[in-house]
């Protein structure tokens, strides 16, 4: 396999729990060595998708393939290649860190003589050296989460599936896990899910946003930001806000909404006007003698994209409360 192949190939996955539909046809591909962020509000179907890819749950329809092996026809081949961190780290409280990791390594089929070195590597990568002989039940939530990550890494799998890898960690540990995942990029194919936005910004090359069991966007971070370029948010700070100023701002071509904020206005510009529109907004404010103190273009960040995509999706649901 000289050319980069699709390491994970998911097509048309559906999953229903009785009358509740958790997934409505999810399809995506992940190339070898790619880091993909699976983003969505709680209950969007992130964990369900991951469970299906790891073979711990069957889909109601659709297929999932890992490294060319179908998850349901060759489950053992798939599982040999996957390291999975579920939402709750699957640790045994009555084992110590070292023996737990050795158990997982053996369970994953690491050959006898390599178990020790793999355990050492995983402990080193997740910085668990200081607690290696402690019982897992006596560890803090953050350490347990790291044991969970170590467990996923210990068999040196080609694919890592991490369900909310930074939950329960303190900010310093979050930073460490992020840099760990950046290090792993390239040698492993990684899918990680989260509902924390800066996390995908920090770690992922590609983002898949899911909401209510559907993929609502799938692109690189830049791609998603560009997609939102049609809309601009400008914040104005003025000395003398008045109704006249507001009317003047509204009159500018392309301005969709003007919201009164504390000591100024927030102006939303739609369409392709771009910087010309900003200039006109400034002129309008000056022309209305509002005493313009500050004009700031708001950067469109992932959070806005996310909110926009996930809420507009909600609006499409018939009878949904918009």
């Amino acid at each position, binding site marked *: 396999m000289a050319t980069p192949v699709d390491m994970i190939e998911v097509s048309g996955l559906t999953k229903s729990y009785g009358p509740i539909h958790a997934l409505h046809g999810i399809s995506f591909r992940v190339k070898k060595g790619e880091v993909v962020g699976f983003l969505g509000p709680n209950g969007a179907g992130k964990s369900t998708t991951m469970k299906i890819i790891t073979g*711990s*749950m069957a889909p109601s329809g659709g297929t999932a393939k890992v490294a060319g092996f179908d998850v349901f026809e060759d489950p*053992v081949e798939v*599982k040999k290649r996957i390291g999975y961190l579920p939402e*709750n780290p*699957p640790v045994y409280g*009555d084992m110590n860190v070292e023996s737990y990791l050795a158990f997982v390594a*053996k*369970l994953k089929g690491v050959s006898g003589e390599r178990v020790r070195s793999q355990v050492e590597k995983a402990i080193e990568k997740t910085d668990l050296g200081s607690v290696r002989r402690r019982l897992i039940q006596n560890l803090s939530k953050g350490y347990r989460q790291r044991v969970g990550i170590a467990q996923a890494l210990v068999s040196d799998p080609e694919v890592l599936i991490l369900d909310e890898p930074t939950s329960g960690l303190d900010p310093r540990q979050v930073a460490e896990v992020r840099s760990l995942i950046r290090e792993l990029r390239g040698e492993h194919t990684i899918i990680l899910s989260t509902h924390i936005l800066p996390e995908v910004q920090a770690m992922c090359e590609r983002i898949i946003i899911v909401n209510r069991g559907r993929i609502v966007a799938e692109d690189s971070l830049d791609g998603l930001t560009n997609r939102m370029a049609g809309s601009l948010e400008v914040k104005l700070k003025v000395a003398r806000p008045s109704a006249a100023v507001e009317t003047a701002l509204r009159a500018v071509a392309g301005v969709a909404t003007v919201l009164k904020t504390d000591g100024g206005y927030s102006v939303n510009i739609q369409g392709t006007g771009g910087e010309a529109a900003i200039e006109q907004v400034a002129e309008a404010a000056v022309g209305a003698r509002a005493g313009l103190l500050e004009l700031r273009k708001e950067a469109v960040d992932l959070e806005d994209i996310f909110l926009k995509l996930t809420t507009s999706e909600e609006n499409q649901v018939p009878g949904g409360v918009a």
Partner: protein
Amino acid sequence: MRGILVIAGKDLRNLFMSPLFYGIAGLCALAWTLVYFLGLEDFARASAMSAMQGGQEGASIHFVVFARHISLVNLVMIFAVSAMSIRLFTEEKRGQTMPLLLTSPVTSTEITLGKFLAGLVGAWALVGVSFLYPLSIRVFAEFDWGPLIASYIGLLLITGCYVAIGMFASCLTESSVLSVVMSLIFNVLLWFIGAMSDASQEPTMAKVFEHLNVGSHFVGFIKGGISMASVIFFLSVMGLMAFLTQRVVESNRWR
């Protein structure tokens, strides 16, 4: 095969390193010691009696002491194994470690057999503790090994059934209490299926129930006979329960 041993090894290691096993073993030993002591008293009295009457046939230590001990061991094992078998699946579910097993390159059959092996070794370790009692008699007196060994083979087989039943109960639920209660009820039911033969009017059915009578199979071993039919009966119970457990474990992937 590797998966079976890895899972069984982990479970056994955790069992023997936990206070649970020693607590249960200690309590069992307490009950066995009391009754064993009473059995010895009876035996001493019976022997003295027969010696006074000048009879050639003394009381049999096997029936007066050992058989009573073994039936108590059997009774206690129903409870002890039910308690110990929570660890097999219920604890995995409660600790949310099932996903680890289900996403590892092992089949449901390997998981089930690994768990069964672990349960079996754990339960047989308790049976081993109970074997110390008759063994201690050997220091003072000669007796016939035959019936004792046969009884213990029966005991190993029947505890194997309890383990398989307990394992099945534990894979059904996440609640420890429910797991123990189900296991106890299934084990007790196993003993009562045979009693159905008395209630059955149909001669064929009565015959079927007679074959399913755990009591009569077990008594055969205590009397010192190893019947192939009984061995096969116990092995089938274990096989059936292990099969059902495997189906339940496999269904985790399909629900």
